[in-house]
């Protein structure tokens, strides 16, 4: 039966008509205990859904919908390595990347936990070598700069995480800096190379397929740069200045990366779910291997919660179904991610990929067009900065928006020797006060004020914008691991109910093919120009004209 025709969906439809009548002010007035009823904890995460436009009945109907769509069985399939990525006929086993080494998971007769930990150990040896200043460049000097070249899933996760955990000191015996380069046009790379000493620089080429154009273009530029300045042969440069991370060892070898410097992951790991594999190498380099393992442990903790908790208290499931409630029943199609901690600056961009590349789909698993909305538009920014940018729209615009507020409760508590930590602590409290204030105003509008008095109409706030607040006890590797896995499982749960495949991304393929064609036209091959639309052709001609000048 079509999803929207199902009894569960229809019941939610009816229920939504009553909820649409109520303002969040009413919901709080009618249920004084909702802040307890709708708040959940898993280890270092406290998740509060009470400012969502739901009542107890809503959650019941939503979990009914989830059950009717076999969510529990599908969760089992996910963890057991069934081929949940149906269109590509393979499992999606990012959860296996964080299994402790004493666990086992048989896939096609082999225990992949052994492979996972073998690669982690290989990565650990590389990390230790770099940390102990015993990885050497062509001159024999220790490597001090690591440039991670990757894009998409090979970039966003590590980049976000390294920023998030920047308070943790790098455990290297000497100064070691990790940089990220992703942009295809080489602008990030060329800017960075000006600052680096080639004999002390290591390039990490991260690409699941090892065919990603953006990454390989940057890798070639990096190789040229170091060859030109070193005056030693290519073999030596490749051996001592390049590490590869990929699911395609043959391609790494063809590039010239020695086997010792190859870190592997597998086709059953989706790119945007790959930071838990050796793609996390730059994370381990920056925070150390044991903290990287804490990150894995945090994610594993959320895995265990997701696979075992009943749907009614399963945080990723609740987050997912409340999202579906907002999107499909309350007609909200914009989702703002608002961390109140500057270290989480890259978290919105990370979620943009995780959610939109996963669930930005319009075809069901049985190859029908969906007749309901799927993934909304997700964007975000550090909350306090966004207050000075787009919050105006959240408060007084015409779009309905759902928000996730994310903040650590504690910060700067363990920094004894950092001068001014008291002042910094005050700044953190200031940020928290803004976090709570904004979610209040969004929910309650002017009613949040005790006395609205004679306020002119243009100063009024309607409120009733729903939000979830996620409090981390502290922004530790463990808590961050939990947080990311929470969203991963939320995305999976939504895909199950929407009946779409969250693990492929065919929508990005055509553009790659077209770019190839366009490139040949830009290079002067006119044989394909005939198939091109006049708009694009005109742009190309204009560009060629300008380049000749």
């Amino acid at each position, binding site marked *: 039966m079509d999803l929207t025709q199902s009894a569960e969906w229809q019941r939610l439809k009816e229920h939504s008509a009553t909820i649409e009548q109520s303002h969040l002010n009413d919901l709080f007035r009618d249920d004084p205990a909702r802040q307890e009823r709708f708040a959940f904890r898993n280890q270092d995460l406290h998740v509060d859904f009470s400012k969502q436009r739901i009542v107890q009945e809503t959650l019941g109907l939503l979990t009914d919908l989830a059950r009717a769509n076999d969510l529990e069985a599908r969760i089992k399939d996910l963890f057991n390595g069934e081929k949940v990525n149906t269109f590509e006929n393979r499992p999606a086993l990012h959860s296996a990347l964080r299994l402790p080494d004493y666990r086992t998971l048989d896939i096609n007769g082999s225990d992949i936990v052994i492979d996972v930990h073998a690669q982690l150990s290989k990565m650990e040896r590389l990390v230790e*070598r770099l940390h*102990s200043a*015993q990885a*050497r460049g*062509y*001159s*024999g*000097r220790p490597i001090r700069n690591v440039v991670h070249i990757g894009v998409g899933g090979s970039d966003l996760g590590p980049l976000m995480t390294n920023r998030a955990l920047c308070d943790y000191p790098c455990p290297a015996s000497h100064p070691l800096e990790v940089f990220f380069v992703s942009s295809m046009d080489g602008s990030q790379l060329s800017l960075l190379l000006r600052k680096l000493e080639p004999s002390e620089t290591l390039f990490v080429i991260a690409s699941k397929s090892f065919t990603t154009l953006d990454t390989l273009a940057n890798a070639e530029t990096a190789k040229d740069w170091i060859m030109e300045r070193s005056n*030693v*042969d290519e073999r*030596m440069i490749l*051996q*001592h200045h390049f590490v590869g991370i990929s699911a395609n060892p043959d391609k790494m070898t063809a590039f010239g990366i020695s086997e010792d410097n190859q870190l592997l992951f597998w086709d059953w790991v989706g790119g945007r779910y790959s930071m838990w594999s050796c793609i996390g190498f730059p994370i381990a380099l920056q925070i150390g291997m044991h903290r990287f393992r804490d990150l894995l442990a945090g994610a594993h903790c959320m895995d265990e919660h997701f696979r075992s908790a009943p749907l009614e208290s399963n945080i990723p499931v609740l987050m997912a179904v409340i999202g579906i409630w907002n999107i499909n029943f309350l007609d909200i199609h914009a989702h703002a991610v608002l961390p109140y901690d500057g270290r989480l600056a890259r978290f919105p961009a990370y979620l943009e990929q995780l959610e939109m590349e996963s669930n930005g789909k319009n075809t069901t698993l049985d190859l029908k067009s969906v007749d309901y909305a799927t993934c909304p538009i997700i964007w975000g920014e550090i909350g306090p900065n966004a207050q000075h940018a787009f919050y105006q729209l959240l408060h007084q615009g015409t779009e309905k928006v759902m928000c996730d507020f994310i903040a650590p409760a504690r910060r700067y508590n363990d920094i004894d020797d950092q001068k001014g930590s008291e002042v910094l602590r005050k700044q953190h409290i200031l940020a928290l006060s803004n976090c709570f204030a904004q979610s209040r105003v969004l929910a309650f509008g002017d009613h949040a004020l005790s006395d609205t008095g004679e306020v002119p109409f243009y100063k009024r706030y309607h409120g009733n914008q729903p939000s979830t607040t996620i409090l981390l006890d502290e922004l530790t590797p463990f808590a961050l691991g939990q947080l990311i896995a929470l969203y991963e499982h939320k995305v999976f749960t939504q895909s199950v109910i929407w009946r779409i495949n969250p693990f492929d991304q065919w929508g990005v393929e055509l553009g790659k093919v077209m770019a190839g064609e366009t490139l040949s036209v830009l290079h002067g091959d006119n044989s394909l120009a005939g198939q091109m639309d006049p708009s694009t052709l005109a742009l190309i001609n204009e560009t060629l004209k300008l380049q000749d000048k």
Partner: protein
Amino acid sequence: MKIIIYGNNMSAMGAAGVLARTGNTVYLPISSHDLDSRRISVTEPGLRGLLQSQFDSGRLRSYDPQHPPTEADIHWLNLESNAYDKAASIVADVASRHEGRLLFINQSIFGIGSTSRLNAVLGNDEQRTVVYIPDSLRGGRALESFIHPDQLVIGSDSQWAISRITAMARVLMGTNQRIRIMSSQEAEFATLALNGMLAMRLSYINELANLADNMGIDIETVRDTIAGDARIGKHFLNPGCGFGGEKFSDHLLLFSDFLKEKRRSSLLRTVIDINERQKETLFRKLWRHFQGNLKGCKVAIWGASYKPGTADIHNAPSLATIDACMAQGVEVRVHDPLALQNLAEYYRNAENLVLCSTPEQAADGADALLLVTEWPEYGMRDFDRIVSNMRRPLLLDGRNVYDPGEMQDYGFHYHGIGRKAV
């Protein structure tokens, strides 16, 4: 006099030996048994024998560090640079048990102003005082440098303490001593400044040597010219593969941090960084020679102590070289006349480290020979035989001890520091 020594480092043992020899009753927190069982490593030539004989005479006595003797004429502090708190607690403890005059001689440096802080613990009382006397110990000739320092610096404002110490110095060192009296703060400053000056000279000449290396210029010629200028002189201008030693390095770090904090100056930090890089200079030459493929190579190292004449390996360039080689899967074969025992303890169970009882044994079958510490006995060997027993005749001279032409005649492929390779 009755003297209690606090601390068990080389300076503490040196002071104990010499003070006991001149008739004092000296208490040291090390027993004759510790020396025998080698639980305490004595890296100074002659020191073990001196201590043993003083124990035998009964003037040198050991005590349990938990229960120091109650009374003494002089309390002598020889602690590590990071042990200020320990010093303060010793001072407070002794003060609480003693009425009347008290004399502490502090030879430790915990930073500039730390002796003043210790005096504050004593209530800044003229009669109960801590005097700072720089530790003039020089590794390899500790006893000699203790008895005959170039100058005796006394950092104190207490007249009776100064008189007592000058009288004692006359007995210990003879009458022709150059004695400089100043505040303890000035004395601490001067000690660290002197240390920094020496380090600067070494890093400067090393940086010049590295430059010369790439230009086909012989640094030895340049060095002789600089040293020939009377304003500069010849000391501490030998290019080489870096300097080490516990006290020298600790004090340099201490002063570098102090300069950084007070003046935002990175001058000494740079000096230290250059030296740390310099410690790997032989390794880098090796690396480049073998084009980064060192796995399976055998490398002989001559000299492991941080300088000749001592068994001390603290911060020695040999350690950086050995670490770097082992990390590349190189078999390292080391000879040192005194330091092998310390090396064995430092690298417990290292698979790729072979300790050799003769220089020839170390070089046997090696792909390269690295001279790291210029012990005199490495100067003249049967090089014909050594070359013929090596797998590859590569000689990396970290102290520019050998004549490049002569070594070439033996059949070596020779690299020095800042010299043209032959």
